[in-house]
């Protein structure tokens, strides 16, 4: 029942134009994501996982060729008209990036940046948008939300900024949330808080999440299903427990080996 599927990707490929010929960064990726489920995409740096997310949003670099199919609640994203994509971005499909410091405009207040999303997509007035934003800040666990709205990004810690970005992504209650290594730049304690928050929000809002990371420990914590990418290809996917218990591909095995060695439950010596 495709109506139940938040995201249905089939044979998605992305080719970049380079000075020395074309380079395929994503090759024939297919997966399905139902509402309320968290899909983790694991892989080393350069395996194409970020490019995959950007292609879903239509944000591939200029000159890139995207082929295949990506259905967002039944709507085709690949090759869609620019205006259609713009109306969907931030609205039905949202993204949280890795570096909270650069993803926020340092010159505008938090409130202005949050309200902007609602003003554009929901046509709310600024004061209405700010009220909604305040509720959302509270929902993501930021204290004194009314005061935070008036603050600028540099006045917040890294963890709080990432929460703000999450709030911004969730303002329009999207069907799908894409998260590109959202906790990699954060301390381990803050990372745990953000991941716990993600699970809370999933329970309350029922949205689907695609979480991209190189850390299998993160996926063990939050993912329902896991897909592993290597050199642009999806080499393995399945329920999280199955992948951890019986990894088939060498890419998965090497990611798991590293995570296990660096896990607090590790038994063996380096």
């Amino acid at each position, binding site marked *: 029942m495709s109506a139940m599927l938040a995201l249905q990707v089939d044979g998605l490929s992305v080719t970049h134009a380079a000075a020395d010929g074309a380079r395929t960064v994503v090759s024939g990726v297919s997966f399905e994501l139902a509402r309320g489920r968290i899909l983790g995409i694991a892989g080393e740096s350069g395996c194409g996982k970020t490019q995959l997310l950007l292609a879903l949003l239509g944000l591939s670099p200029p000159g890139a060729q995207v082929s295949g199919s990506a259905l967002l609640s039944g709507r085709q994203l690949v090759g869609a008209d620019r205006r259609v994509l713009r109306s969907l971005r931030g609205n039905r499909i949202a993204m949280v990036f890795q570096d909270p410091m650069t993803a926020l405009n340092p010159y505008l207040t938090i409130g202005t940046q949050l309200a902007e999303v609602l003003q554009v997509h929901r046509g709310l007035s600024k004061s209405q948008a700010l009220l909604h934003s305040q509720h959302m800040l509270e929902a993501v666990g930021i204290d004194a939300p009314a005061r935070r709205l008036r603050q600028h990004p540099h006045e917040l810690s890294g963890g709080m900024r990432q929460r703000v970005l999450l709030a911004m992504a969730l303002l329009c209650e999207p069907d799908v949330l894409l998260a590109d290594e959202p906790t990699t730049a954060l301390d381990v304690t803050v990372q745990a808080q953000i991941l716990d928050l993600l699970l809370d929000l999933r329970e309350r809002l029922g949205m689907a999440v695609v979480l991209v990371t190189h850390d299998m420990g993160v996926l063990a914590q939050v993912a329902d299903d896991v897909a592993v990418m290597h050199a642009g290809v999806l080499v393995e996917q399945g329920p999280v427990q199955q992948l951890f218990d019986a990894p088939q591909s060498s890419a998965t095995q090497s990611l798991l080996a590293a995570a296990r060695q*660096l*896990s607090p439950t590790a038994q063996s010596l*380096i």
Partner: protein
Amino acid sequence: MSGPLLLEARDLAVHYRSPGLLRPGPPQAALQGVSLQLDRGEALAVVGESGSGKSTLARALLRLESISAGQVLLRGEDLAILSNEELRAKRRDLQMIFQDPLASLDPRMRIEQILSQPLRVFEPQLTAAARNARALQALQQVGLDASALQRWPHQFSGGQAQRIGIARALLAQPALLVCDEPVSALDLPIRLQVLQLLAQQREQAGVALLFIAHDLAAVRFLCERTLVLYRGQVMEQGPTAALFKAPLHPYTQTLLAASLPADPRAAAASRARRRQLAVAAPVSLPSEGGCVFAARCAFVQPQCAQTPLLRQVGEVQVACHRAGEPALQLRGSDISS
């Protein structure tokens, strides 16, 4: 262990004043009352979040920043009384590797030049050919080959750049290597390789390690002792194994609970532990003095308004009034073996 300790810090404090508009603001303590000991060939981990002062500690130990109080002794010699030139000579023994491996390499120098620098400074009698030979040897020790010599830093990945950084540091043949979050910016598989490299170099060269990190799990097998910092003060220190098995300070417990196990079955228990440590509502204590961790502590009580001193409890030293009480034991299975 004969002779003075390799490195000792006594009651180290670093204060700074943020420049205000008309006059400087109130003094803020980046480090307060920090003492540590490190002997030849040992490995000590310093763990804490951003803002804990761990980087400040590293820089203060290396005299890259000035100290407001306390002493840093290298083989019993106070570094503060040395002249700039004498200090530079001592630099040979105190080397460092950095958090951003690519940023620590001069983008306008080839690897060959970067590696020959410590040799030029500390062993000026070497000929160019001898320097080249040593640089090549250092590269091979860290698992890179001769082709790297002529290349530029931006041509290397993060993991490779960190290896080059390690090679450069080891060329000075230091007694102590300070590692300032050297693997935080690297993928897990690469992280493991670099940690293994450090462990190997420690065995072969007998160099002592001071490893700074924000994740306890990362230091577990590299460092036999750990020091936990929070907002510039030592919360707990002792054998790493003891900290893992029975963390006494609530902050150490928080750090450990935040370390994610690589096993989906353990996820729920991990989350449950974090919930036990979460603060229900912000507690108001007098803002002056008292335990720095009080505002985040799930076990805070009126007595915490008095600053707890570092005291010995079993194998570890801990700065908490309630350390060891049964109420502070977390419900749920132990994290480690």
